[in-house]
């Protein structure tokens, strides 16, 4: 086992201009940093909106209730209160927010921005107060009396599926939102005849995105132009614009959504549309006055969408060599009070088989309504749970047969020569689920080599004989990323001779101002210093999807590459006329286009823009010079590209406290070609920290009545620098054939296999006790309970 298969540097997909330093693949330091480290960042709450009113929401304290009445009289009398609206006061907004991803099988229940009658989770807004300041608005919220008829609630999928469970939605006869099964081969028959079978039930807790900046939205209506400007903290400005145009019956051109230049993290919840997003701009229009609402952390804990909660019933059948014959996984997914979208469970459904060749697959989703805040994507988005189901069983197979878990994985892995590999299931868009590229065994071997797997096993044996509880865990995964439908880039030569790259996607800390300048630089053969990047404003580019699902480098990156190449041609077309030289002889030198490498025969970008874009009123263009140097390009991937990876961990369990210490952690990662290794490593390491939270610390706990019990950082622990251990990274670069950059997504891979890897390691550490770890996060109390359980095998 050696690391030889691992390339030293990313494969360079784009031909750079001779003599010019290639930017794609270079660890360029970020342009964003200077303003952020000097306190000059501009986040939503830093917006200058002089005199803006501020809003606060009245939220239901009951998980299921009918609103009998709302008394706002005392609150309305409070000095500084501008207006108060309940759901019943705003009938125009009583329209359902459609699920982001739907399915014909979904029994969809309406989610209203401000429900007028019936509430379904603690934290759901029932009224909005607008006041001169947030302090006063919150005072007024305290004075509003809501009379509720409190109804029984359910707060787990198990409770939701119980035969006599209270119904979350009166309109339905049970709490099942969707039930979908996908099958490949003959799983039932295979289970009947498999030489060995094992099954287990795994529970994964709810957890949140917890961007350090909470949500928020500000809006201003301009009566003169009829234009509504909205500043949301969204990952998807065009989605927000389209939703608002739908809600208000406005033309989309009259709704301008501007995401502030800096965003304090997203991680999924900010890619969703929450009720507050529709309410705030609407009251700003009613008042003809700017209104701002900044979510505080206590609201974020109860009203911002979460994810993760699933219960998996998984069964595997395999032969004497540990080769998989069949996997059957039936999982309950907690949809929350409404279906905000089916993306997460659909991803879980298709992520199950992972890196393995499995002839027979049964994967079944039971999506449940519960009386908790709706769920949607959080970094990892349904994949960590599927990986728990599959990877935990790989370890069980090894244990059952007395084989090494790494060996069992290698025996089952899809080989490098089998790509494109058809899994046998369908992807969420209905196409056959196909992995584009990868090399799972070589990355696994490289990780085992870096980890010194054999040596680590020897050290484990020594530690064990000394009475220490040391365990080793592995976790492999695939991540479908770079999803469609499309993303665009608009490149233009601006009047000062700068190339401006405008993207519809918004950055959330990934460094777009740097990455897209790198791509455009190589595409054009123009130095980065002459390229600027603008993002997040629907008035600057008409169509877009947003930053989510590790898709932007693939889609917007490819669009930037295409547009950059075309823009270069256009610029050269003009320069060819002005210099009287053929376009083939031209190249960029600094901010000039130069013929035959002779600086004496050159023209500046400023001069080109003067002729082509600015022009002279009433004067004919020079013959052959095109008007308007601008290119807009959209890239639509044919299907998802697949990133992959495998993690290896050594942990030690303290038998007295149940505390888990991570002794070593190696991450092997393959996200295709890399634009900026510094930034990709940052994505992987940041994702890893989130995975550590899911594995060991984070749980959004609700009691049986649907009351959130972890609604502050004292009860919900986010990992700090003390909890997140040092990581060793192993890179492999298998380019994707599905886009011209050869890239795949990098935003979530760091998170995905961490819970499975850590759980495998902890169970391995506890193997002397035969203890079973089946519930995440793995708290010391659970470790303790597992160690003392008497019914272990």
């Amino acid at each position, binding site marked *: 086992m050696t690391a030889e298969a691992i390339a030293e540097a990313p494969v360079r997909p784009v031909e750079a201009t001779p003599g010019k330093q290639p930017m794609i693949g270079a660890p360029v*330091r*970020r342009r*964003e*940093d*200077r303003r*952020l*480290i*000097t*306190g*000059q*960042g*501009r*986040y939503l*709450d*830093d917006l200058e909106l002089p005199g803006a*009113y*501020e809003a606060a929401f009245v939220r239901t304290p009951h998980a299921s209730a009918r609103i009998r009445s709302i008394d706002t009289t005392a609150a309305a009398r*409070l000095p*500084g209160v501008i207006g108060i609206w309940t759901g019943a006061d705003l009938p125009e907004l009583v329209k359902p927010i459609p699920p982001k991803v739907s399915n014909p099988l979904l029994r969809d229940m309406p989610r209203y921005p401000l429900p007028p009658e019936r509430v379904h989770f603690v934290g759901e807004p029932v009224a909005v107060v607008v*006041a*001169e*300041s947030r*302090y*006063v608005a919150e*005072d007024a919220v305290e004075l509003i009396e809501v009379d509720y008829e409190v109804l029984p609630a359910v707060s787990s999928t198990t409770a939701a599926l119980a035969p006599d469970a209270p119904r979350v939605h009166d309109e339905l006869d049970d709490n099942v939102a969707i039930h979908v099964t996908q099958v490949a081969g003959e799983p039932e028959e295979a289970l009947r005849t498999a030489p060995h079978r094992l099954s287990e039930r795994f529970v994964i807790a709810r957890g949140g*995105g*917890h*961007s*350090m*900046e*909470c949500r928020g939205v500000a809006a201003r209506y301009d009566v003169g132009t009829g234009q509504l400007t909205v500043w949301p903290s969204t990952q998807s400005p065009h989605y927000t614009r389209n939703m608002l145009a739908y809600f208000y019956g406005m033309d989309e051109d009259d709704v301008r959504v501007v995401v502030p230049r*800096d*965003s*304090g*993290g997203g*991680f999924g919840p900010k890619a969703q549309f929450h009720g507050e997003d529709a309410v705030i701009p609407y009251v700003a229009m009613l008042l003809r006055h700017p209104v701002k609402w900044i979510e505080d*952390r*206590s609201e974020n804990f109860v009203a911002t969408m979460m994810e993760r909660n699933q219960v998996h019933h998984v069964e595997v059948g395999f032969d004497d060599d540990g080769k998989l014959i069949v996997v059957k996984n039936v999982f309950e997914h907690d949809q929350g009070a409404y279906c905000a979208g089916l993306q997460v469970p659909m991803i879980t459904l298709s992520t199950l088989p992972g890196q393995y060749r499995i002839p027979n697959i049964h994967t079944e989703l039971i999506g449940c309504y519960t009386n908790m805040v709706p769920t949607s994507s959080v970094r990892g988005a349904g994949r960590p749970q599927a990986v728990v189901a599959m990877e935990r069983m790989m370890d069980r197979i090894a244990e059952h047969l007395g084989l090494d878990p790494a060996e069992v994985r290698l025996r089952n892995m899809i080989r490098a020569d089998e790509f494109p590999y058809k899994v046998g299931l369908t992807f969420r868009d209905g196409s056959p689920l196909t992995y584009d590229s990868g090399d799972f065994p070589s990355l696994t071997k490289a990780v085992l080599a870096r980890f010194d797997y054999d040596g680590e096993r020897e050290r484990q044996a020594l530690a064990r004989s000394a009475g220490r509880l040391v365990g080793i865990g592995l976790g492999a995964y695939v991540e479908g990323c770079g999803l469609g439908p499309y993303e665009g880039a608009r490149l233009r030569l601006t009047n000062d001779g700068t190339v401006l790259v405008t993207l519809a996607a918004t950055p*959330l*800390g*990934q*460094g777009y101002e740097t990455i897209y300048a790198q791509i455009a630089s190589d595409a054009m053969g123009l130095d980065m210093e002459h390229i600027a990047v603008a993002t997040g404003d629907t008035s600057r580019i008409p169509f877009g999807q947003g930053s989510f699902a590790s898709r932007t480098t693939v889609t917007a990156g490819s669009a930037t590459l295409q547009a950059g190449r075309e823009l270069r041609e256009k610029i050269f077309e003009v320069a060819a006329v002005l210099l009287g030289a053929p376009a083939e002889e031209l190249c960029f030198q600094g901010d000039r286009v130069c013929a035959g490498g002779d600086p004496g025969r050159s023209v500046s970008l400023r001069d080109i823009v003067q002729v082509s874009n600015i022009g002279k009123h009433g004067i004919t263009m020079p013959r052959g010079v095109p008007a308007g140097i601008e290119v807009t390009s959209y890239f639509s991937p044919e299907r998802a590209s697949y990133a992959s990876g495998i993690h290896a961990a050594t942990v030690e369990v303290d038998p007295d406290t149940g505390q888990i210490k991570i002794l070593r952690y190696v991450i092997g990662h393959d996200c295709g070609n890399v634009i900026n290794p*510094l930034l990709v*490593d*940052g994505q992987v*390491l*940041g994702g*890893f*920290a989130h995975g550590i939270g899911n594995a060991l610390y984070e749980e959004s706990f609700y009691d049986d009545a649907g009351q959130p019990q972890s609604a*502050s*950082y*004292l009860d919900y622990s*986010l990992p*700090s*620098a*003390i909890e*997140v251990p*040092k*990581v060793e990274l192993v890179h492999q670069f298998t380019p994707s054939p599905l886009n011209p950059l050869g890239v795949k997504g990098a935003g979530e891979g*760091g998170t995905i296999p961490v819970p499975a890897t850590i759980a495998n390691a902890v169970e391995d550490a506890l193997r002397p006790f035969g203890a079973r770890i089946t519930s995440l996060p793995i708290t010391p109390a659970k470790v303790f309970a597992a160690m003392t359980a008497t019914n272990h095998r």
Partner: protein
Amino acid sequence: MPESPSGTRTGHETQVVRTTVNGVEREAEVATRLTLADFLRHELRLTGTHVGCEHGVCGACTVHVDGAAVRSCLMLAVQANGRRVDTVEGLAGPDGELAPIQEAFSKHHALQCGFCTSGFLMSVAEALKEGPIETEQAAREVLGGNICRCTGYAGMVDAVLEASQTSYPTAKGEHA
């Protein structure tokens, strides 16, 4: 109560605060319940100080009061009366020269969205004033009072060790 142009004062007692913020004397009449974080951000428009939790855990709001790192979400503006307040805006020199920890944060990619960054910089800056930070473990302890959701902290650990070496060139350090 006098008519006041600022909404934050509506219906509430006010008091005059005199502080020195980043070396500049500031005087303002503020509601007694106004937090120091809101005062800095919304009254003085020093928006580099961020608010991530408002309950003293995340550290995004960390500033220095009389040289000590404090959580400005847990302190009232009126409590800063007569004291010196330093924020991230004052960390770089007057000529714009970055402090060693700022430079090291950028170099080691210790920030992504940047929302937590001001708080980390202020926490580390205080710790560095007390002496060198020589080991990874010590760096993690200094960083451990704040939360970042983006970076996974690895770059920050490197940045702290490097900034310590820059500030204390003769001290021993793990950083190569």
